[in-house]
């Protein structure tokens, strides 16, 4: 986790680390869920999204 934080210039105070780790694990769970779904190569990101 400290290495990931350094990559974006962030210092995580020791007292905050457990909560940040818990949230990072939560997000990783969602990322894994999403990563398990195959999208076609021509499915572009929805930048400039129009509903």
């Amino acid at each position, binding site marked *: *986790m400290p290495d*990931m*934080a350094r*990559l*974006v*210039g*962030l*210092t*995580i*105070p020791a007292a*905050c680390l457990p*909560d*940040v780790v*818990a*949230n*990072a694990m*939560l*997000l990783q769970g*969602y*990322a894994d*869920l*999403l*990563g398990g*779904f195959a*999208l076609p190569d021509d*499915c*572009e*990101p*929805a*930048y400039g*999204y*129009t*509903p």
Partner: protein
Amino acid sequence: MNADVQAMGAAFAIAADVRARRRTAVSVVTAVIADIEARDTRFNSVTRILGPAAVAQAEEVDKAVAAGRDPGPLAGVPFGVKDLFDVCGEVTTAGSIVLRDNLPATQDATVVARLRAAGAVPVATLNMDEFAYGFSTENAHTGTTCNPHDTARLAGGSSGGSAASVAAGLLPFTLGSDTNGSIRIPSSLCGVWGLKPTYGQVPLRGVYPFVASLDVAGPMAATLADLQAVYAIMAGRTIDALPDVAGVRVARLGGWFASNISSEITAGIDAVMAHLGSGQVVELPEVARARASAFLISAAEGGNLHLPRLRRRSMQYDPATRARLMAGAMLPASTFVQAQRFRRWFRAQVHEALSQADVLVAPTTVGVAPRIDQPTIMVDGRSVPARANLGIFTQPVSLAGLPVLAAPLAVDGLPLGIQLIGAPDAEASLFAVAAELQRAGLLRCQPLDAGYARKDS
């Protein structure tokens, strides 16, 4: 609030009195401010009262009336704004001490300016989750907003102050913002009307951002008539006539949206569908992944937005917000891009569903407002934090960017609400269905004590 005011709109009833000189705008505004000072100690929905500026604007409204000039359709109507809308002369805090040293806004947010031009008077800023990142309005800096219908319970969030002040009867309408459910959830838990307009439709200039991919601004109100009128002014639109509800195809969302909900919500949706004469059920695919995508996009964009400040003064943040933003700032780019690609895929599925029905009915939350001392809800048999999970039915819809009218069910006991979901830019269909269900007695907003409607001020 009597039936005439419900039909006319509480805000329009005030404006009619001001325009006809039965009340002055100054008397309305000063009475509302006194009411907030007397009663909001129980709810903590208001963070700042804009006293002198509000009275000064009310005086201008009264001068216009006296001079025979048009004071606007909302002449003298007091309203409040979630504390992330710029109000000229005020520091926009977004519910945080992190921004407290910013300079005051030099102009109103576009939507505030439009309402002010219509004669409405901003009188208060309203409590919220810090930087709108939460569903509970538990704020380490400004405290927790209590649900007026049971002050031991949460109001929901992040526009909790906006919903609670309407539910308490302190204000006839307020402004909120909705990224993942922040108008719809507190509207449901406090039993008021709310509208999340189509993504991109209402201008966001002067609204402090959270997640640019998902943010929208919208109104919350005590009456459906006011909700529609305020929305039209905010969006710069006119809604001349609503479609005939008999021609609006309605279906309920099944699958994900039929699980984990209380028996009272199921019964409420059953009654709605029976009245509308529809037994159609539509299922959206991959809803769990749609929610995951909204979660990840929010974390990544929110984290990126705050990264410069998190590097320098992270300890000023609410601890819960700080942890979520820090984790979001470290998300890999590929995860964010995957979520945005999934959004594109999900959009096509949603449009397919909307080819089968014009309005989709879904629950807003799993049940009534959680207790403040036990801020959890049950999902799939597990107790999970309310602050992060109250949006399980709203986040997937946010990803699609669809308009949603948050409607209060007419229930005994604590409030419950449903989502009426429409196609992009089809807000009029939502208002048509809501009006029919209100006429049938299935939807109802009951503020505690609408002080603004008293004519002795």
